[in-house]
């Protein structure tokens, strides 16, 4: 019904082709294709969600009891935190290991992604090279980070080496996409002007590409650092990467100590929130500068 649009009631002035055409265009609701797509995607999501709930493997879990138990557990976690199996300074040291893992992966990822990003940007690289790199990067991105870490663990053994290399792989693929897209947004005229004056590829990169996208590069890289901190926690828990994540895994899987998980969660939360505030500040500063 809505597709008819609100303009319909006005009668068309007869014999005027231009007006008729105009009216025909007006009577169609604008962006009808997009509104159909919106409705379709909402419908599909709703159907899939309902189907998902009916097909879950509930394993005799009583939803209500489990939810109340969860709230109880959260209370123990957040209101009675304590450290039992390690001291406060040890916890700080473990947090710094996790931060170190995140930092290394971000730096390595950023350096490699910057080079690949330049080669993947359609406006400064050749078309086939750009397509190949983008495809490769999409393939790398499709494999979850934890699987990369575990795959590298077979060759390098479980530990920080496998974790850093595996996490770097994923950071590279994420940053290449982000960098190359911001390179592609650069004004064509600026590049052409330098090309016309006989500048070589390196000169174009360092005089136009990097300076005009540096704000994007910094904010994407810092955003990845935020993500990598969370990933490093997870890799400590799931792939033996060490750091605070591993302590959390031990507290949960071996000591069943909710209060200790709570204390660890506070450590992680404080760092994560600090990073988020810092990132917002950087973004604001960059926005003001540009």
């Amino acid at each position: 019904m809505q597709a008819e649009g609100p303009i319909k009631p006005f009668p068309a002035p007869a014999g005027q082709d231009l007006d008729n055409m105009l009216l025909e265009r007006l009577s169609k609701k604008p962006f009808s294709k997009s509104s159909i797509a919106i409705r379709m995607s909402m419908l599909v999501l709703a159907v899939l969600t309902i189907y998902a709930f009916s097909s879950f493997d509930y394993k005799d879990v009583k939803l209500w009891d489990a939810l109340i138990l969860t709230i109880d557990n959260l209370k123990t976690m957040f209101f009675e935190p304590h450290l039992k199996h390690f001291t406060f300074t040890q916890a700080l040291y473990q947090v710094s290991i996790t931060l170190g893992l995140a930092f290394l992966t971000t730096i390595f990822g950023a350096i490699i992604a910057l080079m690949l990003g330049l080669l993947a940007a359609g406006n400064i690289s050749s078309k086939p090279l750009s397509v190949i790199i983008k495809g490769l990067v999409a393939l790398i991105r499709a494999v979850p980070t934890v699987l990369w870490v575990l795959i590298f663990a077979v060759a390098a053994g479980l530990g920080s080496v496998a974790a850093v290399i595996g996490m770097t792989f994923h950071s590279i693929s994420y940053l290449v996409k982000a960098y190359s897209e911001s390179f592609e947004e650069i004004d064509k005229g600026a590049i052409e002007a330098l090309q016309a004056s006989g500048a070589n590829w390196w000169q174009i990169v360092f005089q136009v590409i990097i300076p005009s996208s540096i704000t994007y590069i910094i904010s994407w890289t810092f955003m990845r650092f935020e993500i990598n901190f969370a990933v490093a926690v997870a890799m400590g828990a799931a792939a033996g990467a060490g750091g605070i994540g591993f302590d959390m895994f031990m507290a949960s899987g071996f000591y069943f100590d909710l209060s200790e998980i709570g204390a660890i969660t506070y450590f992680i939360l404080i760092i994560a929130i600090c990073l988020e505030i810092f990132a917002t500040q950087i973004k604001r500063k960059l926005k003001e500068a540009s």
Partner: protein
Amino acid sequence: MPADVFAKKRRNSLLLFLLIGAATAVSIIITEFSIAKGVSSVPKAIQWSLSNFYPTKDSLIKLPDILIKLKETLLISVAATTIAGILAFAFAILGSNTTRVNGFFGGFSRGIAVLFRNIDVSIWALVLLFSFGQSSLTGYFALFFGSFGFLTRAFIETIDEVSSSSVEALQTTGASYLTVISQSVIPSTIPQMISWVLFMIETNIRNATLVGLLTGSGIGFTFNLYYKNLSYDIASLVVITIIISIISIELISNYVRRVIL
């Protein structure tokens, strides 16, 4: 004067590079990372994958089992994201500066969003394991909490960006609060919000693998099982099915995004 500016700029960037270099060195020491080992492990890993990490004919027998687990994981990711999206929308309405009811609710819902966003899914998974055991619901709620925090922040930003002028226009005509929401906020923000939900579904499928590894359910568990049994051929088959599903979902959501935005 200009020479001074350039000198200052150079000094600043030099300082920044030195800082980053020092932080890298410190990180290498405390994480006990060795660059030599790291560099040499890449070709070693490639060599190993080429000789071991591919599915064989025998491993195809396991494909139906893998697909069942994959379907379960995909459905959990979709369901967690959609329900989180609905809840996040309510919180975003309360938290956005353009549509909030009062300062208290605004601060409250922003605070909740910060809390939920910064507790990683891996933490949720380990905590929920205590109350939900190895059922699908552990993964569902872990993904749900994680997506809820992220989507609330994304929706708040969308509402603030897109609809402030149209909200003002409607308010001056004397429209009620609910009319403003349903006639202005929802129509103007829905394409952006669907785009965020699609993005979150992609992320959640990747996270679901991690959650499965930690809680012993879904496709993550299947991978871990064969990986630990050294049945690398079947484990690689699991990875391939994950790659195919994530790339096809990315393609679908890219298409939807192109049409609706």
